[in-house]
């Protein structure tokens, strides 16, 4: 089986599981464009390679399969963040390019992108990005271009690159205060609450919400 097709299928199994589904039909329906003439027979092949298990029409990942799937998903979603938030490309370009990137980025390049973006927790669609080795705190040697507010310097002018909220309405609430990606920002203090200045507006934030705001220096 072609490398790309294999990765697309594993990715689809992973994504379907996030939605709480594992039916073979569903996985096939959702697998990406690179998996041409996909069929149930492909899973038989994947099973023989030791990457998936099949049981009464359901398909699950084995341990090696899980690892490969995680990496593909991680590359795809990091690419989305990079293309959308940093390069500000349109939605359709982001999607098609991310689908390419997920197959070609090396481990090293992936971790660099992840660091560059400040180890984002989610993709622009709100799905979790599986963390890589670079994401644990001890491994932070590279200076990231984009950081979460908790790691941003005090008093330095910055700009919001993206907001990755746990709840959508948080983003709406921030938008009503004029806080959106692209807004200039200055961090005043981290404790007892985060205090930021956006334009002439001073806003206090919970640490939890501050962790969801990603900024870069300007």
């Amino acid at each position: 089986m072609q490398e790309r097709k294999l990765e697309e299928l594993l990715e689809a199994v992973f994504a379907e599981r996030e939605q709480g589904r594992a039916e073979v039909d569903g996985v096939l329906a959702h697998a990406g464009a690179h998996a041409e003439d996909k069929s149930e027979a492909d899973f038989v092949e994947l099973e023989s390679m030791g990457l998936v298990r099949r049981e009464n029409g359901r398909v699950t990942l084995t341990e090696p399969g899980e690892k490969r799937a995680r990496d593909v998903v991680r590359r795809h979603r990091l690419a989305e963040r990079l293309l959308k938030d940093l390069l500000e490309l349109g939605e359709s370009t982001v999607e098609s390019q991310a689908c390419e990137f997920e197959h070609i980025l090396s481990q090293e390049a992936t971790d660099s992108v992840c660091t560059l973006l400040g180890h984002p927790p989610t993709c622009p669609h709100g799905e979790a990005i599986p963390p890589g080795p670079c994401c644990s705190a001890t491994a932070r040697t590279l200076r990231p271009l984009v950081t979460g507010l908790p790691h941003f310097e005090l008093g330095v002018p910055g700009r919001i690159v993206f907001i990755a909220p746990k709840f959508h309405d948080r983003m709406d609430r921030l938008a009503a205060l004029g806080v959106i990606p692209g807004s200039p920002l200055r961090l005043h203090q981290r404790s007892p609450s985060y205090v930021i200045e956006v334009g002439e507006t001073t806003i206090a934030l919970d640490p939890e919400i501050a962790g969801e705001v990603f900024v870069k220096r300007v």
Partner: protein
Amino acid sequence: MTRNPPAAAAQSERLDKELREAPRTVILVGNPNVGKSVLFGALTGKYVTVSNYPGTTVEVTRGSAVLDGSPWNVMDTPGTNGLTPMSEDEQVTRDILLWERDYACLQVCDTKNLRRGLLITAQLAEAGVPMVLALNMADEAASRGFQVDAPRLAAVLGVEVVPTVAVERKGLAQIQAALPGARPAKLSVRYDQAIEEALAVVTPLMRETGGLSTRSLALMILGGDDSLRAHLEATLAPAEREQVEEARRRAASRYPESLRFVISKQRLAVVDRLHDQVVVRGARSAASDLGRKLGSWSTHPILGVPILAGVLFACYEFVGVFGAKVAVDFLENQIFYDRLVPWFEAAVRFLVPWKAAQEFLAGPAGVPFREHGGFLVGRYGLFSMGLSYGMAIVLPIVATFFVTFSLLEDSGYLPRLAVMMNKLFKRMGLNGKAVLPMVLGLGCDTMATMTARIMETRKERVIVTLLLALGVPCSAQLAVVFAMLAGVSAAAAAWFAATIVMVLFLVGWLAAKVIPGRGSDFVLELPPLRVPQLGNVAVKTLARIEWYLREALPLFIAGTLLLYVLDRVGGIAWLEQAAAPVVVGVLDLPRQAASAFILGFLRRDYAAAGLFLHYEPFVKAGTMTRAMEVEVVVALVTITLFIPCIANFFMILKERGWKTSLAILGFILPFSVGVGATVNQLMRWLWL
């Protein structure tokens, strides 16, 4: 229940008449903390009413003004950041704009925050609302080096733009002149194709409501505004609703973010372009820097603490000591008991010559009123207890609190207070805003329960109400607590304090887990610190006191009436009898404690009750035994955890409704006794 005191009634009748006669309305709209209410005060003058918007606890202020020779209604709305509401306050503003007819808007904008102001202007323009834009606090903006080219902005928007300094009444005349000629602003936002396509489907389906255009309604619907659901269900056929939903889904699937966010973002893009055209930035002045420094010190993790302590102490001194002790003593004893009650009694005896009726209303002649059961003057008399309770005990606390609250609000310190306290209150499932009702509770829990309204979600309001009733001792309870703790050892006092603090945190934490719903996100705007305008504080305070008299006073009268009946049928003696076995058997307390609990709850007379007299000789002689100290701690813990008074319970009933109130009562009754019993056992085991 909505009886007005005569003066207020005459005033509101006069206002009602003026409002009926006025053909047009001007509605003030703007972001929070931009000086709307000051401008409102300057426009309207003396006669102002504050009332709750129907079905909510949000205050709306109404008044009248004469513009261009004819009378106008003027309405002040809660501060908002847009027409798609994120909170109850914002929904009230939106609903007013939606349902009122034939009005003009006066949008008040903080000049230095023009960007956020224009975000509202863009929405008012979409809604086709005739408006005038006031660029308020022009002086503050100038001192920050912020200049707005008002004529240019007016030319682009096609409406009058007036720079104002509301507190100095600058620009007022121009606003008065401009309002009759208000017209819709020209600031149209063209959205992405996907959104415009959806709008093309949804807009024609919307019905005119009076206030806002169909395009603006359609945008709210696309933004997923749940507060319009009922309106949609009432006006659209199921097939049409399905069309709307389908259009919304199709547009939403094009963006990773919520549609509401995408709409805000595209609006902001248009606003930013306009903003950059009309704003010129210069250097800041030194004065504005001082204000900013003070502002940042007040939330500083270290410097902020003494400031916080100072402010809380000042609040407590003013409300808790001056209001709740000095003023209450004066009004209750000097005015009511020494003068008004005897005068009133004499008047009753003079006006009602029949002996039987006299005795029913004012008790037998020559007997002190606390020792008989007269209907108007007596132990539970409507005048001697109900009115004196509401006017002499609670009113001074309410008045001093409202003054404090308005000062904190207008100075901009209130949200900073919340910032400082946020971490602490997070542990109780609340956020920093809860500090205010909690501190107020030390003065009067009944009042504090009313101010639980400042919390954003129902869940937080219920938790605040519960914790107030349970663990925050009011001034009457505190008086007894301090008096009794002075007579016991420091260790015993520590047992008491530790128990109460532990209970507060434990119950808060548990309540946050048990009560359904989500706490509100702590995203709070910190306005610059300013010197409060005394005139504005006075107007707000008076309007709120009038509101208190209308809303809360009837509760005290009703509570008294209930007590009167209970007393007459022997219910109070029966309650004491019923409580005695619990007090003696479960809490190991002397029998007199039962009447302390019952009378404390009913009459706020903790100190007068026998229990404390019981220990007094021992305290004086220094012969308190450890066992007695345990009794004192157990009694104090139980009294503190118990609901402070019957008026508090009525207030809970009024604010939270039957179900929640009964749940709170059903929890507190056994819980306070249970904690008392546990402390009793623990102390006897570990300490005795």
